[in-house]
């Protein structure tokens, strides 16, 4: 709960930076730069197989749980960040 409060206090930019850190760690690529408009096509190694693992990593990092519908309907990083912010 305290952590959720912490997320609420996070600005979008901070959430995006943390998501970027997760992507860099998980995909082992320090060169990844995420923007709201970034999609899987823009990041090498981010495909359907790694997508769920990135989602699980984000869920653990932010201590939240996404719904299946949320995960399936994201069109870009920005929408993922919106979901995190709404939790």
């Amino acid at each position, binding site marked *: 709960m305290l952590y959720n409060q912490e997320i609420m206090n996070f600005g979008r930019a901070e959430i995006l930076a943390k998501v970027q850190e997760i992507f860099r760690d998980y995909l082992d690529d320090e060169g990844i730069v995420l923007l709201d408009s970034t999609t899987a096509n823009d990041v090498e190694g981010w495909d359907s197989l790694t*997508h769920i693992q990135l*989602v699980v990593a984000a869920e653990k990092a932010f201590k939240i749980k996404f719904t*299946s*519908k949320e995960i399936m309907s994201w069109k870009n990083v920005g929408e993922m960040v919106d979901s995190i912010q709404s939790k």
Partner: protein
Amino acid sequence: MVFNSFTFLIFIAVVFCVYYFVLNENTKWQNVFLLIASYFFYGWVNWKILSLLIATTVFYYILGIAIENAKEDKKKSLFCTLGIIFGVGSLIYFKYTNFLITSIASLFESLGLHTDWHTFKIILPLGISFYTFRILSYLIDLKLGKYEATKDFLAFATYVAFFPCILSGPIDRPDALIPQLKTKRLFNSDCVLDGLRQILWGLFKKMVVADNIASVTNEIWSNYNLFSGSTLLIGAFLYLFQIYADFSGYSDMAIGVGKLLGFRITINFKYPLFALNIADFWRRWHISLTSWLTDYVFMPLNIKFRNLNNLGIIFSIIITFILIGLWHGANWTFALFGLYHGLLYVPLIVSGMMIKKNRIHINILGLPVIKDFGKMLLTFLLVTFGLIIFRADSIIQFYGYIVHICSPSILSVPKVLGITNVTMLLSVVFILIMLILEWKNRDKEYGLDISSIKYSLLRYCIYFCLFILVYYFGADASSFIYFKF
């Protein structure tokens, strides 16, 4: 109507001329003409199956609008589920009814229960597996809110029936093709030339490489009991080259025909013979089908079971691959083929190799380093084994083929009765030509994309040689392996 026939040559010449030089500048009339041409192409062999395609198109168009207009999520889900049941149901009816009847009957028989069930005479509508998947992705993405339903019936119907892709793919997604149908398409000589080059490459792979190998593999498979283990092993290797050249050749032609008409069709193959492991192979082989099943089967399953970590991934992968196998047809061999590939992923998932980047390291000769060559070879062997299951008519035939390969005759000199050494030698030469060109151009969209060669004379010599080969070996317009799926 197959791409490698004289009939198609006349058809595409007429379509091309009318499309650009009569209807130029008018997108709406171009689409009307494209739809008529697509229905003509599809109904060429059997016009009766056209009614099913048209009825399906109308049904899903209305369903798409209904999903869009539904205010509650529950209603959207209901319409989407209805569409999925209808789509999957018709696939099951046309492809799997007799398989289910005979499988259940033989299960009962094995339990000592007598059944008197009969199979039905069901004609499989051409391309149903391909256009059903196109329509279902439209419906599911609409429900997920990825885009808005198209109100343009003409664009939707043309998307479903688009003649370059209707018989054997690639399975284009709606958000890739429908927007192209709504934009102006003017004659572009670069695009047309690129399309012609890709068609030539596809024709070479299909008519020269695949069909030449087919004469050898068909002979081996039809009488496999008569041949030595070494011959059967050669036959298995050759079949991998054959099916690759056949299907990727078809895909190149489809994409090339799309380019002639100003369309960008989704890529279907990315040089899978150079894959470094099985996961890499499936990222390069029949991409439009595997990505479809990854998005609509693997992803939802993996999301559901994501808390099980690797176990969840393994379970989702195996289910997805069994479905990929069964998509090819109603036979237990296809299910086993899928299960086999799913199981090959297990060590990759456990070791974390599945998500590792697969870059080929090159030595000073421009060839893969020994380690990567070894990985390619291992992948090649694993895929070859899988294709023995795929090619066999039954599990018993697969077993018989493997038993023969493992016999002492594996050490004898391979020889195919009825096939001359010249045919065998030509098969090897054609495979080498294909491999060399594809290796050289592996960072390009297709193997004959040699526009970077500075000497135009050399470029034209290569085109001319391939054209002569196609002309010389193109006497028979044989069908494509993937038409039956």
